[in-house]
């Protein structure tokens, strides 16, 4: 286990380094720069700004400085939002995204798993068909459609929910619903099919034969085995949801990490782009690592190597 972890962490660091390097050079290869779009700026002031942030040095030197600093956890100052460090921006924006995203993850996990089990348990009944239809529709509707429809019906037409920002707890309902729509449907489908698979296994019949109550056999034997595919999906899903969906944040004007990232790219805020990319990549890798370890916890037969 220790050896496995060490190997995985080493690989993760290499992967993050490669991602950072690719992003750094790609970003600098693209014509234009952070200070070109500001029209009121004189060439002298621009040169001064570039000198201040070290953008006038050769690219290889910039790269070395950046990587050394980043390895020490210092991602520099934002080029556009003067006086704020990248760490500061990412922490504050991620807090917003993670709050909405965390609720969405919880909602989709609870609803998805529950309905998936019900559908599998009542296979072929009306409930099953209803859940199947809903979940099939659910994965076919793009998130911007969900967002705008919610906005239209609950915000504009019925006027029962506030539409913009995140000032009260009521404000969270629509973004969370929009964000959890796709994962809920997906988890429902996943859970239903893996549950059906497990319910047909021999050990389920054995459990029944030895007189276990339906409840115990369902929750102790079936659920534990059937939840594995959901766990696999959970890794990337949590990473995507917590780091903010660009669409949901744009439509509901939530000041989260997703919108910030797009803004940084279009404004060519080099340090912020690098910082966010490294943050997102690290988050993704950590999530996948946790999922792999969780796998082992849920199913001890699985061998990590």
């Amino acid at each position, binding site marked *: 286990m220790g050896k496995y972890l060490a190997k995985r962490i080493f*690989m993760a660091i290499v*992967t*993050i380094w*490669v*991602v950072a390097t*690719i*992003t750094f050079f*790609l*970003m600098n*290869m*693209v*014509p*234009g720069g952070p200070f070109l779009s500001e029209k009121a700026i004189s060439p002298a002031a621009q040169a001064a700004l570039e000198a201040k942030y070290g953008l006038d040095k050769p690219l290889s030197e910039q790269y070395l400085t950046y990587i050394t600093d980043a390895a020490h956890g210092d991602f520099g100052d934002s080029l556009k939002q003067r006086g704020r460090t990248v760490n500061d921006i990412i922490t504050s924006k991620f807090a917003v995204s993670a709050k909405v995203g965390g609720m969405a993850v919880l909602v989709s996990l609870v609803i998805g798993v529950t309905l998936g089990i019900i559908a599998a348990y009542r296979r072929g009944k009306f409930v099953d068909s209803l859940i199947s239809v809903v979940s*099939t*529709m659910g*994965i*076919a*509707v*793009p*998130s*911007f*459609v969900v967002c*705008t*429809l919610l*906005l*239209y019906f609950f915000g*504009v037409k019925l006027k029962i929910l506030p539409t913009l920002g995140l000032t009260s707890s009521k404000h969270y309902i629509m973004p969370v619903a929009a964000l959890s729509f796709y994962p809920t449907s997906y988890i429902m489908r996943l859970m239903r*099919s*893996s549950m059906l*698979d497990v319910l047909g296994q021999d050990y389920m019949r054995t459990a029944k034969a030895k007189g276990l109550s339906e409840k115990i056999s369902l929750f102790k034997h079936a659920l534990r085995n059937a939840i594995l*595919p959901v766990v696999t999906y959970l890794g990337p899903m949590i990473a995507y949801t917590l780091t903010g969906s*660009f*669409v949901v944040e*744009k*439509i509901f004007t939530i000041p989260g990490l997703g919108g910030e*990232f*797009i803004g940084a*790219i*279009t404004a060519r805020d080099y340090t912020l*782009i690098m910082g*966010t*990319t490294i943050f*997102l*990549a690290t988050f*993704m*890798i950590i999530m996948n690592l946790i999922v792999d370890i969780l796998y082992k916890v849920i199913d001890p037969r699985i061998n990590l190597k």
Partner: protein
Amino acid sequence: MNKNPLSLQLDLNPDDFLPASNEEKESLVIMRDSVSFWKDGMRRLKKNKVAMTSIVVIILVMFFSFIVPMFYPYSYEQQIKGANNLAPFTYSASEQELIDAGEKVFPHICGTDKLGRDYAIRVMMGSRISLIVGLIATAIILVIGATIGSIAAFAGGWVDIIIMRIVDVIYTIPDVLLIVLLSFALDKPLENLANAPGFGWVKTVGDNMISIFVVFALLYWVGMARMIRSQILILKESEYVTAARALGAKSSRIIKKHLLTNCLGTLIVTTTLQIPSSIFTESFLSFLGLGVAVPLPSLGSLASDAINGLSTYPYLLMIPAVTISLIILSFNLLGDGLRDAFDPKLKN
């Protein structure tokens, strides 16, 4: 000679010893006709009502997006004077005059947008763009993914390790970053290309569109490659391949007869399911303003444009939203049907 009544001897005549005719031979064969991979799959597919309905829907959508615009009286960029923001089946003042004068005016089935363009044709053109993007992007992904996946599986060893590490890296790079950066980076070269003879279409399609394709080619092959690689790795170790090898079959025969045929089901299914996800991605990018160039519509950009007037003209959003959901839904259902028909093992 009289036969003993208790004798068990058969009464035979010379005719009984004639060679059997072909009909007689056939009646003795108890095996059914060997069913080819395609026939078997198609038979199962035809029984699947949901999948057949999806095929019909897809064909209908294609008919409306590729054939109908050719005969449609309006064009997608034509701005009709005084016909701004018309509700469905209403006419502008000048059109109403024409109708009163006894002339026929083709109705605006879905109304018009704020620039006075007929919305029905814009939705049809939008579906066309979305479908074209979905199909081309999927073709790119299929070719690159299948090639790289099979190379990784066949070569094994360090080639495999390197390819899989690249796949890991690509998985962790945020795709929006690359799309935006590429559309900036490709701006200049594409402009030069557009001015070159024979490449005028680049301008119509737009830089963003081309960079979307480049991004698909660079990024989204990884899923397909993983799928093919794992499939081939399993097949390579299977007993019948070992048996074929033991019987002296050449590698080319094994690849053609065993690996390819057994991969085909997975390939068909993954490809079909890739189409809706490509359309998904395109609509999402168009929605963010990173998709097709104006005035060319795509379903995503139509929905994005409609948001500002949501409270007054909700149908401008509903129509493209429903269309795109319908397209994605039918491709998804068709993919599921194909999986059940051609690759039952994959059903999880």
